[in-house]
């Protein structure tokens, strides 16, 4: 009997061990107590601890940004005794849609992580996963240092800090423009004329990769177009039903995009290419224009680019609507902080924020990584590329900025527009039908509340 009992216990133990392997957060046992019994405290010899920073600088084009992050975290480690940062790089969509989301579900998010403003921030804040940073910002004296924290603010509490801003518009290849004898277009008709001249020269006018999962790429252009034609207030009303997707401005915008494709101005391979491939077609000089966000500047001025010194930027030409002169831009990506931090972790996070969010670092990422500052006071940008300067001019000369539509509408609406515009580019749906379908998706989303 005794023997069988032992065996049973072995079995139980094996079972437990198997299960223990599953739990991700197996905590180490209590730290070994110091033996000897003497009570002399060890001065300044803090226990060492790790703090994970989840970032998205994993691509080759983000090397400079990663280096900057490494240097700042190394400097912060010296300030906080015992601190060791662990940089955990994850590709941006994987982090946003899969990894961070799963961690948020189980409450195991890292102390510091890359976070998007808007819908994501609201959801996580409501679930109580994010730390409100208002007090910390006041303490560090940077509460008023940011241009705009709107996308990270929920009910007056700030849950994240943008690293940099963005604007969207056309990048163009000055040399190809010169060869074709055209200049930067000011109106939509001029843009069409420019495209025609480029096409006649055998150059793809607009590079774009909107295939497979990258349906959001074409929507940057669609977004700027319908705001240009209908004004910024148009998209503010979608989520509540105050305005409709069947608005003539949206239909016209969809028409113009389809027109660009049908006339061969947008790369005919658009549905067979990924976002990065579309981008590459521009920065290897195969296409003359690229509608993209300012973050692309990094790739365009990167090592593999052949158009480094000949590329410029202009915002969407005037399209003849109330939104002319406005630019799609904002500050929507940065760091969030976990709500469940231990005291020493909080100290580490605070030190990191102090070292990361200052004018000096903002200036560095502008010059080295072509990132638009999120904080005020960056000046004397000697060393910045011509491209970054023209980005700055476009931002400065705009009448105002409007956020990307996907920060304003429900997620299901965003996904529906991606598929619908893909169909539009594939010639499978008319602009009118597309607008109707969008409105149906919008009404359904309002009804279901998601």
């Amino acid at each position, binding site marked *: 009997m005794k023997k069988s009992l032992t065996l049973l216990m072995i079995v139980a133990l094996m079972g437990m061990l198997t299960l223990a392997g599953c739990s991700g957060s197996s905590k180490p046992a209590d730290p070994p107590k110091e033996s000897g019994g003497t009570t002399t405290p060890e001065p300044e010899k803090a226990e060492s601890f790790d703090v994970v920073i989840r970032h998205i600088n994993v691509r080759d084009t983000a090397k400079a940004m990663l280096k900057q992050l490494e240097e700042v975290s190394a400097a912060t480690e010296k300030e906080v005794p015992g601190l060791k940062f662990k940089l955990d790089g994850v590709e941006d969509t994987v982090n946003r849609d899969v990894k961070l989301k799963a961690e948020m579900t189980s409450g195991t998010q890292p102390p510091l992580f890359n976070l998007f403003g808007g819908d994501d921030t609201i959801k996580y804040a409501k679930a109580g996963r994010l730390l409100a940073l208002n007090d910390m910002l006041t303490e560090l004296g940077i509460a008023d240092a940011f241009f705009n924290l709107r996308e990270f603010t929920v009910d007056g509490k700030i849950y994240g800090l943008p690293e940099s801003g963005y604007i969207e518009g056309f990048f163009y290849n000055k040399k190809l423009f010169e060869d074709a004898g055209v200049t930067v277009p000011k109106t939509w008709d001029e843009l069409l004329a420019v495209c025609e001249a480029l096409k006649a020269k055998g150059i793809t006018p607009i590079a774009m990769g909107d295939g497979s999962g990258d349906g959001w790429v074409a929507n940057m252009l669609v977004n700027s177009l319908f705001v240009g034609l209908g004004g910024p207030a148009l998209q503010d009303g979608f989520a509540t039903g105050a305005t409709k997707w069947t608005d003539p401005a949206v239909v016209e915008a969809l028409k113009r995009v389809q027109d660009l494709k049908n006339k061969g101005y947008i790369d005919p391979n658009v549905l067979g290419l990924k976002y990065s491939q579309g981008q590459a077609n521009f920065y290897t000089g195969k296409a003359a224009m690229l509608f993209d966000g300012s973050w692309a500047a990094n790739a365009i001025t990167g090592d593999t680019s052949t158009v480094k010194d000949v590329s410029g930027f202009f915002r969407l030409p005037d399209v003849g609507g109330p939104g002319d002169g406005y630019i799609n831009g904002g500050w929507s990506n940065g760091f969030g902080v976990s709500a469940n931090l231990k005291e020493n972790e909080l100290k580490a996070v605070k030190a990191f924020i102090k070292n990361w969010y200052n004018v000096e670092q903002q200036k560095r990422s502008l010059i080295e990584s072509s990132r638009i500052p999120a904080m005020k006071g960056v000046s004397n940008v000697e060393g910045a590329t011509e491209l970054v300067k023209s980005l700055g001019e476009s931002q400065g000369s705009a009448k105002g900025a409007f956020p990307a539509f996907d920060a304003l509408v429900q997620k299901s609406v965003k996904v529906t527009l991606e598929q619908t515009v893909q*169909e539009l580019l594939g010639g499978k749906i008319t602009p009118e039908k597309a607008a109707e379908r969008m409105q149906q998706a919008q009404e359904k989303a309002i009804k279901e509340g998601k």
Partner: protein
Amino acid sequence: MNKILRNRVAYMVFVVPALVLYITFYLIPLFKSLQYSVTSWDGITAPVYNGVDNFIRALSDEKFWVAFKNNIYFVLFSVFIQVPIIIVVSILVSGVKRLLDFYKLTVFMPSILSTASIAVIWQFIYSPDAGLLNQILKAAGLETWTRLWLGDEKTAFLSVLVTNGWQWTGFYIVLVLAGIFAIPKEILEAGEIDGAVGWRKAWLLTIPLIRPVIVVTMLLSITGAMKALDIVLIMTNGGPFGSSEVMATYMYQQAYALGDFGYANAIAIIITVFTAILSLIYHLVNKKTSKEAEY
């Protein structure tokens, strides 16, 4: 042996660990999934019970049926195109006298690569401008045959199927080959003496004798096709405009792109049920025909 079977303790020592693993990694997730499938849940806040709403929604969801249809294509392609090719190639290879190992190795190669690598490699092959396939077509003067393979709704899913076939054919060929080599020589020799040579031998002797292996191959193809996810996710991500979506990628999209975990769990349950039904049908058909084959 009998002694051990009668010793309950020893019995448990052997069975319990496996049972614990089975319960932890199979039964608990399955029942959790079942539990979440009747809720409206965004993955973060508390799930809200909503009865069979998710299932009703799935069955009336046009896009879900597109995905289901693609799964069925997947199954049909596997069973009626892939499996015959596998059998023919296996019989051919089994008759080879020299370099047998070389052939075996060559056909087996693709299945040791990870699906992710294969999907990326074939993405390059299908790439519109620089892609191998279009380049070959152009070089052969078939310019009009070039396509946006993965970007055209007519060819996208077929392209994925071909890639999947390329990956797994070798694995099954090796499986079938093992079956062929296990046939006792005497039977084949006797058949040859009676005049069964060439395709007659294959059709009347070899295939009936390796029937059990073919049955397993088909079953694996069917279940593999029903749960296909990775290769579609990487190659087309369901695109263009959802035309190459399969049930598993649709589930993935609902969960991770739209944050509708309740609905995604319902789809997971539906996939399980459909796969079980299909396997059952296959089992019944197989049982019936195998009885007939005995006479």
